[in-house]
């Protein structure tokens, strides 16, 4: 806090009105604080309370029973959640890496295209506009063992059809492909906006100094684009950590647990099995995992910034 704002520097208030005025900056925060309490803190506290309880529906009402670490004990013996975490982490690493690479590459290309640039951008943005349910249906048809396009192509090439969604080996990569198709456009949009807002002078100076295209990209464009890349990377990582609809619609987490991801498993426990208490605990653990990622990420970014 700025020293000028500290209590010691305030003159002694002569009236209540003056006292209120001196603390105006705190009162001004009240609306935000109320919204934060109502929409974030309160649900989080409820979730925490639920995670140490068993919630049952009996005698015509909802009954909360404090069960201490009972849910945590269940967690320790849960074999599916670690599989869901493993699948989710693998999913995040692969899709975010591929999407960042493709999104950035497409944005660099699109920024250089002068003719039909509007059309190109519109086409590249289509996947992001398609509703998740339509994506699931379309891709399930594309992957269909009997009638799907991919197997028809394989058949035309005299290759055996593949069980895209039903094979433990192929199911997760199949979902990753859909996610990359769906979300690369998002990265592309953010990157393109970043590129187009870059100052032109450093690039012109580099050109005058004889920099090649690669040198310009490596030493001027990418360093200038770093803030955009970092923010996009963080958002996309958090979003992909919460992947649900694509898995739900394409494989339902199967075969076995091959595509079980955290959100899908929590949804099943919470709503499918009506185990509110345990579902709440899994949600808390997921929040903590995400928080750890954000903290590590910020430290890493700060560390590199100070090193640079």
């Amino acid at each position: 806090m700025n020293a000028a704002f500290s209590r010691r520097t305030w003159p002694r208030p002569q009236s209540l009105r003056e006292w209120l005025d001196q603390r105006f900056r705190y009162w001004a925060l009240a609306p935000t604080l109320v919204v934060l309490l109502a929409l974030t803190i309160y649900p989080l506290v409820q979730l925490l309370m639920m995670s140490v309880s068993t919630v049952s529906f009996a005698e015509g009402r909802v009954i909360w029973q404090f069960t201490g670490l009972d849910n945590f004990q269940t967690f320790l013996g849960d074999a599916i959640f670690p599989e869901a975490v493993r699948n989710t982490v693998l999913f995040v690493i692969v899709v975010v890496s591929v999407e960042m690479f493709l999104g950035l590459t497409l944005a660099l290309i699109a920024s250089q295209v002068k003719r039909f640039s509007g059309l190109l951008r519109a086409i590249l943005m289509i996947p992001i506009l398609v509703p998740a349910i339509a994506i699931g249906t379309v891709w399930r048809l594309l992957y269909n063992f009997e009638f799907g396009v991919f197997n028809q192509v394989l058949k035309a090439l005299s290759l055996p059809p593949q069980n895209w969604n039903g094979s433990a080996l192929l199911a997760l990569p199949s979902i990753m492909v859909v996610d990359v198709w769906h979300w690369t456009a998002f990265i592309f949009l953010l990157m393109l906006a970043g590129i187009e807002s870059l100052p032109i002078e450093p690039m012109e100076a580099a050109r005058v100094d004889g920099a090649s295209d690669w040198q310009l990209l490596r030493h001027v464009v990418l360093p200038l684009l770093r803030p955009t890349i970092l923010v996009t990377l963080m958002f996309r990582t958090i979003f992909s950590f919460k992947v649900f609809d694509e898995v739900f619609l394409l494989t339902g987490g199967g075969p076995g647990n091959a595509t079980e991801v955290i959100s899908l498993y929590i949804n099943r426990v919470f709503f499918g099995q009506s185990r509110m208490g345990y579902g709440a605990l899994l949600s808390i653990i997921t929040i903590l995992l995400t928080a750890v990622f954000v903290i590590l990420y910020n430290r890493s970014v700060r560390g590199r910034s100070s090193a640079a």
Partner: protein
Amino acid sequence: MTTAKKLDRRQFLKITGVLSGTLAATSLAACAQPQPAATPVPPTTAPAAPAAPAATAVPAVSTGATVAKVDPITVLINDSPWFPGFEKLVRLYEEKSGNKVNLAVTPFTGMLEKTRNATTASESEYDIVNLNEGWYATFYAGKFMAPLQEIDPNFEVDPNIIDYNNAMRWSHDKNYSTKDGIVYGLPINGNIQLLYYRNDLLEKAGLKPPTTWDDVADISKKLMSAPNLYGFATRGQKAGFAVAYDWLPFLRGYNGDWVAKPGEDWAVTINNAAGRKAMSKWLELLKTYGPANVADLGQADLQQLMLSGKIVQALMVVANWSAMDDPEKSTVVDKVNVTVLPKPVEGRHATTTGIWVMGVPNNLPDKRKKAGLTFLNWALSKESQLEYTKFGAVPVRQDVYTSELAADPKYRWMRAMADSTQYIVESVRIPEGPQITDSIELRLNQAIAGQMSGDDALDNMAKEIFAVLQKAGYKTKLG
């Protein structure tokens, strides 16, 4: 200048105070109140402002001839293949009775939460809720539904309404649906499993419809020509209650069950000799005669295989029938027939309930409860159910299945239904059912996907079911 600044702050404080107070009040009110109903389709009248007097008398179930004038009601129902039939039935009710019905239509996902919100609120916003196979045990056991005889002491279940192995009842003493249990709901969709087969192919080959699983294998062996024509399939996909639902008739056919005697003896028996035979036969049929992607086959995929003429026999629910003779969707119009699900050579026929039940929430004033029951009574009368069948829905009365309608080739599925009702077995009908079926679902999917042997899958199921029952306080053991 300074004065003006101070005044601005004051005004600002006042405005933000009012705004934040309003916002907080709105947020808290939103938390306290149940979710709003889904958009009524189409809203025929406002749910409030009752225009008609309360029900004075609830007519007998069977006639459906006289309907009392009652307040408008709102029905919470999910959008599904059978919803259009139900909607037509509702419009017919409005026309015949002059009573109004609002339909709060919602996707399947979210139905459970809306039902919970409504039934745990101080007063339900719905007069009737639609409960599926996996949920009604929870709502009966938790006393969230009104006992129908408390609404109308003269209420009796018409014996022609199929009881789906006591799906309407719950005994709080036995913690199970039993014959002597309290009536909490009435069936509205009579979905059970049948064996679909290509009648044209069987006739051409001089084969009779199968009555045993070995017959299914024989027919498959003779007619299968993979990958163009498969012999037999069930769903293999892990999708809530898909593969497990389709496997249960095998288990029950070999006289096995998930526990020794549901409702009485909770010893886990799913991995006993009967369970192992059921698993072995199911795997043999699917792996030998099913498509290579059987582990990923869901309801729509299986129906698609049948409609596109790529499979000879399939275990599917009767709700899949509506598309079979539809030339817009089917390449096998008039070529498919259905029969009772086959049994093991030394076993019994079994078909699992996959029905929907409608109940009246307990947290309603008497007047609204009576209005709800009035509609249900009318909807389940023979006349209404005959119309319901013509609207494309699956009726719930035995006398409709044996009516003259069944002689019409268009309704040829009704004879198989009439013959199957005696073999109906419930699914896993306890409040912990979804946890148990999730375990069965996962392990069966792993077995059919080749990730685990059938025996290991059964042993895992047994351990997991035992853990669930033990934690819930059932007197159980590993059988």
